[in-house]
């Protein structure tokens, strides 16, 4: 295939020990040590109070990283097509629905039900930002970040529009945690555009193994949260360095990106 190109205009990040992109930059460049403390998810003040009350961790996480990325690029979130990628969407809500349905009464709350859709964060994002552009919500299990990235880069290339990519995951409680052990909430947003500035990324396939993080603790994070499969790319962006990264995607396929920073 011919390589696909996009520019990464900005990043928003919220994960364990990574409270925002500047703090993450210090960790990823080795200036500060990574502390595995669960992230504080800010109240989504941009939502009307009724929606804010109904929203869970996934909504806090995605709005926080989405607004960080758009603010850093000086972009208006109300105008941007958005792509949400997640392995399990609202894990806590899914567990609670299954518990209710296993009970005798099966009294499911309407809010729990509408929050159960995989695209609930996209819906809340639209309400919070007033954005009526297309929003997509994808899942590819452990390959969800890669699937979201491919979707975003195709949209940038074909529609010649900036696109906001938000990849995120949250932890299941038990008993699901034992079968899908995602230890931390982690969200990353990237504003991608067709303009050739910031970090330009041509993308292609590879069957070679994915890049790992040198730091063993960060490597465990990369391996345990699907959205954190983005870490090798984030490290390169944090260092402001040109280079090549291979990101985990599906079995037998990796996404290879060549990153070059604008002069």
């Amino acid at each position, binding site marked *: 295939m011919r390589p696909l190109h996009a520019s990464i205009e900005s990043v928003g990040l919220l994960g364990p020990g990574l409270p925002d992109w500047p703090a993450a930059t210090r960790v990823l460049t080795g200036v500060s040590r990574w502390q595995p403390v669960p992230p504080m998810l800010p109240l989504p003040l941009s939502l009307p109070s009724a929606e804010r009350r109904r929203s869970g961790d996934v909504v806090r996480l995605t709005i926080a990283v989405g607004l960080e990325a758009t603010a850093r690029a000086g972009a208006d979130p109300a105008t941007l097509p958005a792509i949400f990628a997640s*392995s399990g969407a609202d894990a806590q809500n899914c567990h609670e629905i299954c518990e209710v349905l296993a009970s005798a009464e099966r009294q499911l709350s309407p809010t729990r039900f509408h929050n159960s859709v995989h695209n609930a964060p996209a819906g809340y994002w639209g309400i919070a930002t007033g954005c009526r552009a297309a*929003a997509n919500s994808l899942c590819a299990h452990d390959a969800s970040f890669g699937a979201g990235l491919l979707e975003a880069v195709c949209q940038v290339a074909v529609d010649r529009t900036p696109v906001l990519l938000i990849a995120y995951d949250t932890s299941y409680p038990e*008993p699901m945690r034992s079968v899908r052990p995602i230890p931390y909430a982690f969200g990353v947003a990237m504003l991608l555009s067709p303009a050739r500035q910031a970090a330009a990324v041509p993308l292609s396939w590879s069957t070679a193994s994915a890049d790992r993080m040198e730091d063993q603790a960060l490597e465990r994070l990369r391996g345990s949260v699907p959205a954190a499969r983005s870490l090798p790319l984030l490290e390169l962006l944090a260092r402001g360095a040109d280079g090549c990264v291979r990101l985990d995607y599906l079995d037998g396929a990796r996404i290879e990106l060549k990153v070059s920073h604008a002069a």
Partner: protein
Amino acid sequence: MSPLALTSFTATSAIGRGLDATLTSLRAQRSGLLPCRFETVRLDTCIGEVPGIDRVKLPAELAEFDCRNNRLAWLAMSEDGFAARVAERAAHYGAQRIGVFLGTSTSGILETEIAYRHRDPCSGALPQDFRYRGAHNTFSLAAFMQRALALAGPAAVISCACSSSAKVFASAQRAIAAGLIDAAVVGGVDTLCLTTLYGFHSLQLVAPTPCRPFDTGRDGISIGEAAAFVLLERPDERLDSDGILLLGTGESSDAYHMSAPPPDGRGAREAMLQALAAASLEPGDIGYINFHGTGTPSNDAAEAHAVASVLGKKVPGSSTKGATGHTLGAAGALEAVMCALALKAGLMPAGLNTRRVDATLPVSYLCENRPARLARVMSNSFGFGGSNCTLILARAG
């Protein structure tokens, strides 16, 4: 956008397995909606169940994917020569050059719902045979189809509630236009489960009798299950005049409410306008519209106003959900296949169960089948979270 050809397609729903059975039911105006006897569900509603899913046995090499949703996918993919056609094209393009983009809203959640009834009484653990990746995870459908069809290109599930398997057409179109792939297996599969039956019930959105879209007395949805698959490729000289093309797609968000559309249907309107623009068509070019038409009072009203504001009041249309039920994440692809059948067979299918069309809705709703040589048709799909998608399909000749 450059048109794409639907070089193979199939659908299985409560009104039939495969295209012949589906068309026979459409011609006979037969609905597949029956009183709900599903699993342990005790709700006063009707459902569109596909018979025989419980008896499907996946081959051993696909056993890790066993769940109701993937069994229905397996049942459906062998109809109408679909799997064989995909294999033939994979040999032509290469397995890496065919993408898999499928819509589902609930994937294999039924298996998880049942597993939660069988947790270890001491530890609370799920049963040993619980499979998260193969059954529960939303991606399970695309992973299963990719494996079953021996494909090795990009794959994703798009899960945007009831617009999911309409939006897969747009994503596949972009991936083909970008050169990422040469062809795509798109479609949707959603199967009955407790989450949706009790969930829509909690919102007081399920009808006690078979749903009656656009009826003056409409009182909610009937939930159905279905699988529909389409192979999308660039058109070539082998496409005859009977061939079906995807001409345009449109996607928008409501930015309004999680489970209700704005009364003027402005997000729906935007999706339809985008699809017309992508297809380089005028509103007068559309000969039939397959409404989203769920049968709830507010959904149908919002859609009717949106359609009237784009196409006017005269374009004949119907919701096939009176026949199949609302198949949720499979609805977009199922109704795209209904549109392809309408184009091929020269038939505008009736909206079943609707006795008295709501006179306050500015639409030309079909309560009886109408033969027509159609050239271009539109299909709407809207979902929770304010997710809207419109597709435009056409005859090649």
